[in-house]
């Protein structure tokens, strides 16, 4: 019998082995740290590795198991977080150089604490675009994170370190955030599962903010059951987050075997097909065919919605960072600085109009969900571009890579819908991601459909081939 290596196991499988004593949590942590040491110099996912903390946590879990106690559903599972999440004793840098001088956080972010309460073990903090304002994780201060499937390509962003770490099998689970697509874009470009829940579902306490009216906590995994179990773990009311909706937890782990007969699946056309590369359209078509789609549907306001969220993001982000821009402008990543300042200068009348567009677009989306149960759309217009690539051709048009990567994710998060990105791999090519978009608060539906697609082998998230990632000693 061939025993799969640790990095090939998903979180549920690792926890199963730890809980039954087949592996110790400490051995899992040591193997994880070893793999990070071997592969991360090439990938540049991690900005902090918490070896001492991880080993201490693992020792406590092993002691609980030895004493016959339940160590939790994620016992011994290593995970890592985008470096905008607070970690007690570690400075929260949010991808910046400016915050590197700040005092360390005094407590863990809510989501970090919830994951550790289920037995998971935090092993490190992960690279991102500065202040989460980007889609490529080509960070001027901390370097670019590379795509594990092809290190010459970007991992996507802004949660690029999170996506790449899971793709390379460095950890089975990672936390990210998504304001305009920062979970969904890197999940798609790296070829793994990503979840952006409904706006207001999860507590954002202890996560460095970007745009208050758009920020979401999200998750990355290589299996849908991992997404579900980790998402269920971080649900729950947190009175310290005024933005969180007052809803009870709605677990999803029991939704992994949905009844698909009669499900009305619409494929978003119009804006969501414009600019899409052939391989991306092919991925959507494969998913739509398996689900028995009823055909193409449109949201007429999508282009305006994308423009409106672009303006709101720039304006809110610019306003948030204005004090630091006034005092330390030269210490920002130049690309981030220019866009934040431009946003801060945007006339208020434009922002007010953008808010009106958001209200009307939400009505249009709600009306569409009277006729369909779920929507499909590409996550990105193209697969992972090369590092440093600034433009990409689409027919006779030239698209700016950084600005275009989020054109299909931005309208969806603008109105706070839950989305699972499912990865679709094709022979010889880079993976493409498809957004499974559900009505507000119906994360269970998106997760269930993702599970069905994985069972049908339409969606899968293989660990990247490590042989091309090791740097010779």
């Amino acid at each position: 019998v061939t025993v799969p290596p640790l990095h090939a196991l998903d979180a549920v499988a690792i926890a199963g082995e730890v809980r039954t004593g087949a592996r110790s949590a400490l051995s899992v942590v040591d193997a994880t740290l070893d793999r990070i040491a071997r592969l991360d110099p090439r990938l540049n996912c991690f900005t902090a590795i918490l070896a001492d903390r991880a080993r201490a946590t693992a020792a406590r879990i092993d002691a609980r198991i030895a004493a016959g106690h339940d160590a939790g559903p994620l016992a011994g599972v290593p995970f890592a977080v985008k470096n905008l999440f607070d970690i007690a004793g570690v400075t929260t840098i949010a991808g910046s150089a400016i915050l590197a001088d700040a005092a360390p956080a005094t407590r863990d972010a809510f989501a970090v604490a919830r994951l550790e309460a289920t037995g998971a073990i935090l092993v490190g903090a992960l690279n991102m675009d500065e202040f989460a304002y980007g889609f490529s994780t080509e960070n001027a201060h901390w370097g670019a994170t590379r795509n594990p499937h092809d290190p010459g390509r970007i991992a996507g962003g802004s949660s690029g370190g999170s996506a790449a770490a899971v793709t390379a099998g460095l950890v089975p689970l990672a936390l990210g955030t998504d304001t305009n697509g920062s979970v969904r874009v890197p999940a798609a470009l790296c070829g793994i599962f990503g979840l952006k829940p409904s706006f207001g579902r999860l507590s954002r306490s202890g996560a460095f903010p970007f745009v208050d009216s758009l920020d979401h906590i999200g998750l990355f995994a290589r299996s849908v059951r991992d997404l579900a179990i980790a998402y269920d773990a971080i649900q729950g009311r947190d009175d310290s987050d005024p933005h969180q909706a007052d809803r009870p937890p709605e677990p999803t782990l029991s939704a992994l075997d949905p009844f698909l007969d009669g499900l009305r699946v619409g494929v978003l056309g119009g804006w969501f097909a414009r600019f899409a590369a052939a391989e991306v359209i092919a991925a959507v078509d494969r998913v739509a065919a398996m689900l028995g789609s009823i055909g193409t549907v449109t949201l007429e306001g999508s282009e305006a919605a994308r423009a409106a969220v672009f303006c709101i993001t720039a304006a809110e982000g610019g306003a948030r960072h204005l004090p630091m821009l006034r005092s330390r402008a030269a210490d920002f990543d130049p690309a981030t600085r220019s866009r934040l300042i431009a946003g801060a200068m945007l006339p208020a009348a434009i922002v007010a109009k953008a808010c009106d567009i958001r209200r009307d677009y939400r009505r249009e989306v709600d009306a569409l969900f009277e006729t369909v149960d779920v929507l499909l759309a590409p996550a990105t217009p193209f697969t992972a571009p090369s590092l440093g690539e600034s433009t990409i051709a689409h027919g006779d048009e030239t698209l700016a890579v950084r600005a275009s990567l989020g054109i299909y994710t931005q309208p969806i998060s603008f109105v706070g819908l839950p989305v699972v990105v499912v990865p679709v791999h094709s022979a010889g090519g880079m993976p493409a991601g498809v957004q499974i978009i559900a009505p507000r608060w119906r994360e269970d539906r998106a997760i269930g459909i993702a599970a069905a697609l994985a069972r049908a082998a339409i969606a899968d998230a293989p660990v990247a081939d490590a042989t091309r990632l090791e740097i010779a000693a």
Partner: protein
Amino acid sequence: MTMLSDADLAAFVTTSAIVLGLRLDDAALAAVTDAMRGVLGQAALVLDCPPASTTP
């Protein structure tokens, strides 16, 4: 409609920087002006939308 020239845009950015209390050198001002052109491109789409519904 009055068209925004490159000089108008540069003047707007320079004046706004003063209003916001930002100290930027010429290179940074030029970069912000470029970024502003992109933001205003999206802002034009926003402004061109029909009036929003009057029902909140």
